[in-house]
């Protein structure tokens, strides 16, 4: 490569800076780009075009439409508003104000944040423990257990909620019956407990999935690190604590971000359990609130504003978490 880098005739300038212009040259201005480069670019464009077309159609367009919807409102004329004219008029931020003035919507946010604060750490600790156990076990049954723990993830959330619903509903649930027999009055669907009953479903579903992500990263840890540690006289606990955990940090951050986003979007579980539990109201989670606005109140404008707000909060929290976790990762070197 560049010999100058190695000559070190300019100690005042850090060596690492020198290759940069060279690298920039390689991506270079157009006039230096060869024909092959142009052909490459065209090929790249041709191959990525389908992706971007679909991405635009299925992802950007709906987001754009939702943003647009959220800034408008419907005006009606005619006697009693019936049979007259319906017009979409610009409303500015009125829909956002309406959403933020709604106690139930804000309570829903508080609820999912509380849910996340408790459920996410629990689930990730559990997933990490399982991953470390399965990774260090040398028994034969490892693949079996790995699949068994992962299996719930294969059950769609709606189905899982229906299944657990049967275990929660008094009169049908064997759990409630057994507890009742020993004089313990279990109520999984009361106002105080229903959120944690949902947390249980979510944990059951996703612990195995997160465990698998962590195992995948563990598999990538080079074996010589373990050898070195053993030579240094580290026991299994120390290896886990000082080698495995720091090295699977990226995977932990990843599962953390997914879980945060998922928690904010909590929808299927409360939606399915709603008919069984009076304690789940129409705004139990922000997503459920937006759904009710759109599909019960037939008010797409307000729903769009709520969806946008939810997306913003999800953005802030997940990027905030990435900064936080990523920053600490750097300190670790």
């Amino acid at each position, binding site marked *: 490569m560049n010999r100058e880098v190695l000559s070190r005739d300019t100690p005042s300038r850090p060596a690492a800076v020198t290759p940069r212009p060279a690298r920039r040259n390689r991506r270079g201005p157009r006039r230096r780009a060869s024909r092959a480069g142009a052909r490459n670019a065209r090929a790249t464009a041709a191959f990525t075009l389908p992706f971007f077309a679909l991405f635009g159609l299925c992802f950007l367009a709906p987001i754009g439409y*939702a943003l647009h919807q959220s800034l408008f409102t419907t005006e009606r004329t005619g006697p*009693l508003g019936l049979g007259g004219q319906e017009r979409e008029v610009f409303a500015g931020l009125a829909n956002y104000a309406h959403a933020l003035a709604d106690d139930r919507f804000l309570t829903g946010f508080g609820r999912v944040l509380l849910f996340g604060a408790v459920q996410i750490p629990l689930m990730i600790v559990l997933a990490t423990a399982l991953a470390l156990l399965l990774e260090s076990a040398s028994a034969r049954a490892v693949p079996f257990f790995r699949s068994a723990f992962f299996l719930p993830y294969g059950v769609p959330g709606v189905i899982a909620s229906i299944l657990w619903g049967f275990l929660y509903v008094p*009169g049908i649930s064997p759990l409630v019956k057994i507890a009742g027999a020993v004089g313990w009055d279990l109520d999984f669907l009361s106002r105080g407990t229903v959120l944690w009953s949902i947390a249980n479903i979510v944990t059951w579903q996703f612990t195995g999935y997160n465990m698998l992500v962590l195992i995948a990263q563990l598999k990538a840890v080079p074996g010589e690190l373990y050898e070195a540690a053993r030579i240094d006289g580290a026991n299994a606990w120390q290896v886990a604590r000082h080698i495995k955990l720091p090295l699977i940090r990226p995977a932990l951050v990843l599962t953390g971000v997914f879980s945060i986003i998922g928690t904010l979007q909590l929808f299927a579980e409360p939606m399915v359990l709603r008919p069984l539990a*009076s304690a789940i*109201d129409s705004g139990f989670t922000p997503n459920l609130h937006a759904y009710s606005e759109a599909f019960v*109140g037939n008010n797409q404008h307000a729903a769009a504003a709520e969806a946008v707000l939810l997306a913003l909060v999800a953005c802030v929290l997940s990027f905030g978490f990435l900064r936080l976790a990523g920053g600490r990762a750097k300190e670790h070197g």
Partner: protein
Amino acid sequence: MTSNPLHRRTVLGGAAALAAGFALAGCGDDGDGRAPQERKKGQRISLTFWSWVPGIDKPVDLWNRKNPDVQVTVEKVSAVNGQQYAKMHAAIKAGNPPDLGQIEFPVLPSFLLDNGLLDLAPLGAARHKGKFSGWQWQQSVFGKSLYAIPQASGPMGLFLRQDLFDKWDVPTPRTWDEYESAAKAVRRKGAWIETFAPTNGNRFAGLAWQAGAKWYGTHGDTWIVHLDDEPTRRVADYWESLVRQKLVKTIPDRQNAWYKDLQTGAIPAWVGASWGDALLVGNAPGTKGKWRAAPLPQWKAGEQAFANWGGSTTAVFAKARYPKDALDFAVWLNTDPESVKLLIDGGYGFPSAKTGYATTDLDVDKDFFGGQAYSKVFADAGAHVDTSWRWGPGVDTLYQRLGDAFTDALADGSSFRSVLTKVQRQTLADLKGKGLKVASG
């Protein structure tokens, strides 16, 4: 929880789905091909009809056999949590609704806000008025317009397990006072007479209707909302006192736990409606022969005040291509004796038509009610329903608000009256938000 970043798409949950739905539905709109037209003689046309009623295809097949030129296709829509209406509203917005749809009485006005339904009055629908029960016909009348043909109603009554009531020596309650005494007696035997399902706005509306409430009205071009009135307060106070005395359960009705209680006798009564027979037969088959139907308890002994819970209409959508044929089909479906018979057999409640069937035809599950001609109870109730009750726009939202507020009240002990005050305030704001003129009653 999300499993992969693609799921982030669902952040925009309802809105995105809705948007995509509109965008896609919009593509299918053939624009000018939708102008209403007269069918030429001998021209063959086809109409689409969205419904969720079990067995609706039988009368439609009959129509198709008799009317080869006007073929009706039934498309089943899901009636879970009002999904069918979400779909209809979306189709109206996208400009490609079906020709006909099954719409319940309370939600008709919400569709008028979309300008989604066709005014049938100019087509001469008024000439069919005499074929239907008066108050049900009126449910679809707004000003000088008529927006739907009534199909069936749900006069309310009281279902009870006669065997248990006899065994426990509890007389059939004829008034709400007696009903409370019965509740106490049943509670002493370890059962609960009923559940007050906080999320069931439909039934609560029926009970308020019976007490003489008028939730909606109009004054010039202003909607009047009057939820927090004297009769409704009486109903709210009454059920609150039952709840606070722990005489009724508060579990959701028509759900697994409730069915289980019906099967085991843990709940021996149900303030229901005429269509409830099919529900009991289907979900508590083991209790066959033990149920009876009784008139809805009265506020004053000897009165005849009744109300309606449920029931629906066949409406023609504003974009229907052949409005006249759609209207003819809707009228035939709900008045032709053969069609009505098939509807009854399908278990679809109390016909709105005045003639073409006998009340005894409705005793489909006579054995289940120990041979009682139970439909007479509901026929009598139907004859005494207060006909001045009107529905207004946004009833589905109102029910949801009521459900949320009752749920809160059960949890934090606030009074049921405060629920009415709160929901009244919210409903006014909701309707204003929809761009309507509203005033408090």
